[in-house]
């Protein structure tokens, strides 16, 4: 699934652009974007292990919290700010996305869709909080702080006057076009203000 997501993100990014990846992990996506899009890459990440991997890969990375790390940057410092699979994990997604749209000319957000068909089944038939490929954590041990659906996010964007320039949905490593709020396991959005 990660591979298709990364391909979608890469397809939205112009060659030679500057990119800030919030929660860049071990830098896999940034390394891909450097290779395929020749971007000027910068990451923000908290995990010690991940930071070490980034430094070893020659990536620029700041060890800090996404919730606070953006305030240092001037408006429009990057062509793209990426919040892939970290959007649902920040304490204040509303604040972080507003900041990302200030610091980046465009923002790419990717998150697991809580109303994916398997999640709905598990809630409906088992009466339990779903554990799936895109939401693999038990309720007592999850980094995810917020649970949202593709429909929730569209609503949010329209309420906040955030323009959705592009959207893509992925399930089981394939692009989904039909009824994404039901069949899309992951939603990806290219946003601008």
């Amino acid at each position, binding site marked *: 699934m990660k591979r298709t997501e990364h391909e979608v993100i890469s397809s939205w990014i112009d060659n030679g652009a500057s990119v800030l990846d919030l929660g860049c992990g071990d830098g896999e996506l940034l390394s891909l974007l450097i290779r395929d899009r020749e971007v000027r890459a910068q990451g923000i990440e908290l995990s*010690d292990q991940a930071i070490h*991997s980034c430094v*070893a*890969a020659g*990536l620029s990375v700041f060890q800090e919290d996404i919730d606070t790390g953006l305030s240092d*940057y*001037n408006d429009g410092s990057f062509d793209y700010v990426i919040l892939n699979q970290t959007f649902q994990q920040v304490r204040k997604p509303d604040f972080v996305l507003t900041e990302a749209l200030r610091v980046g000319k465009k923002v790419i957000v990717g998150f697991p869709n809580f109303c994916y068909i398997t999640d709905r089944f598990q809630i409906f038939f088992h009466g339990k909080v779903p554990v799936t490929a895109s939401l693999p954590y038990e309720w007592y041990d999850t980094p995810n702080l917020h649970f949202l659906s593709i429909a929730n996010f569209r609503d949010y964007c329209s309420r906040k006057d955030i323009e959705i320039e592009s959207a893509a949905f992925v399930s089981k490593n394939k692009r989904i076009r039909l009824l994404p709020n039901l069949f899309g396991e992951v939603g990806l959005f290219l946003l601008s203000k």
Partner: protein
Amino acid sequence: MNELIQKLTPLHEVRVPTSRSIGNVETKYFNFANHPNFLPLELGEEIGPLSIAYETYGILNKDRSNAVLISHALSGDAHVAGTHWGEKAPGWWDDMVGPGKGIDTDKYFVICSNVLGGCKGSTGPSSINPQTGKPYGLEFPLVTIGDMVNVQRHLIDYLGIEKLLAVIGGSMGGMQVLQWMVAYPERIRSAIPIATALKHTPQQIAFNAVGRQAVMADPDWKCGNYYGSSVPAKGLAVARMIGHITYMSDASMNEKFGRRTKPEKQALKFSDEFEVEGYLHYRGDNFVKRFDANSYLYVTKAIDYFNILNGHNLENVFRNLKAKVLVLAFKSDWLYPSHQSQEIAKACKLAGVEASYCEVNSTYGHDSFLLEIEEQAGLISNFLKTVSNGHFNGSHEA
């Protein structure tokens, strides 16, 4: 099998099995700033001639592109690694610098010089003033971190190195790294400031000020004219004891000493009883044997004067910098707390400098940069590798 292990282990965890000490090394001297070409100093005076103690390890490659300059901290010297003939103790960063170590002398040509104003071979207040034939004492002009780095730049010129692969240093050494980044950005390909600050804060100045007062309150100090008679040992030892308190952390002191006391009965009511007292005393007395009290005054003053933002704002202080930067801080360091390193990182962000910031877990306090070797060595060696290969942020330097 080895290959398999390497494949299964993340890059930074690959331990180099052959790390060893560099062996016997010796200090060399660089003499310059002879009459009439004295070295102009930042605060308006000038000084010369100068003799600067330095050591080098490893081999400078053909295109002179593998030189790494290490800048030492307050009490450090040019002797970073290896041992001097007849001495047992290795240099102050021997765990970090050597063949197969974090700063690998099989790959890099490593240089370190004793700072201007120091007392370990470079011209300082204990050197002979050629105009009087006696030690300078307080006739030695005030020097700054900028002057120290200017001297290093002269040394690099003398060694025929156009561009350093990296300049690395912790604490006061980190200030020199920052100074390189601002004063000679075109002369460095990368910089690693460790556990340091853009400027000294009132709290940091205060600790240094108390140390200086301790030295000057010692009747043996005699306004700096103690050469040839007894040195202000008590004062300098107290200054060093204060220093050591600030270099450790609550946790590291707890672990090292607890509330343990010496088993034997105390001769006097207030002689050393707790282990921590004995330790500080030992450190203080040891320091007196190897450090000049006037140098302590001059060098701590240079640290207190340090403010890289002088005449700059945070946004433009690193504006001309093309070098890659790795900023390191330690979680338990309260003398140079991580927020000061984050400020350095912020300045890099604002200037669009390619930079990384990493906060290393360690309980050793400010001393971590000397003691927490493994994690630090992994970061530094991997960073140097990517800079040296020109493989940084995907780009390949011409």
